[in-house]
């Protein structure tokens, strides 16, 4: 989590926001994906480890296993 915060700082540097900030002509009750805009990218090794070259797209699955494990043990 601290890492994501760090990246937020780095990719907002120089006022570069990695996506469109206003969306026009969108219909109600329809899903919309904001258009990406490349700002900074990871170094090759970091990108390979994370599975994306874009800091703004790096969002690992955070396991909540610990929460579920404790009731299991009581069974």
């Amino acid at each position: 989590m601290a890492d994501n915060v760090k990246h937020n700082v780095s990719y907002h540097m120089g006022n570069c926001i990695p996506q469109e900030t206003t969306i026009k002509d969108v219909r109600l009750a329809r899903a919309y994906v904001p258009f990406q805009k490349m700002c900074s990218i990871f170094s090759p090794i970091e990108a390979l480890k994370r599975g994306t070259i874009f800091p703004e797209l790096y969002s690992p699955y955070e396991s909540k296993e610990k929460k579920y494990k404790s009731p299991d043990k009581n069974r």
Partner: protein
Amino acid sequence: MSDDKKKLELLEQIMAIDFMVVDLNLYLNTHPMDKDALAKYNSFAMQSKMLRESYERLYGPISQGSTSSYPWQWIKEPWPWEYEANPTLSREVK
């Protein structure tokens, strides 16, 4: 540094650079007018080509269609799916 270690390091570099090429390629498919992304793509594609050439000069073909020195190097062990043939990326991403 042992030859095996050098070989794995070079392979890891190629894998990492090739991943940059793949992801920038995908981005460019939807952003064909992004000059910065295109420049980065071209730079990484060139780097990939050069790294592959130096790897193949030392250790033999990395993909079909590359030349081989004598004897035929394609069948040299370890095979690509074997543990010894793969770099272990440290997983301390947090």
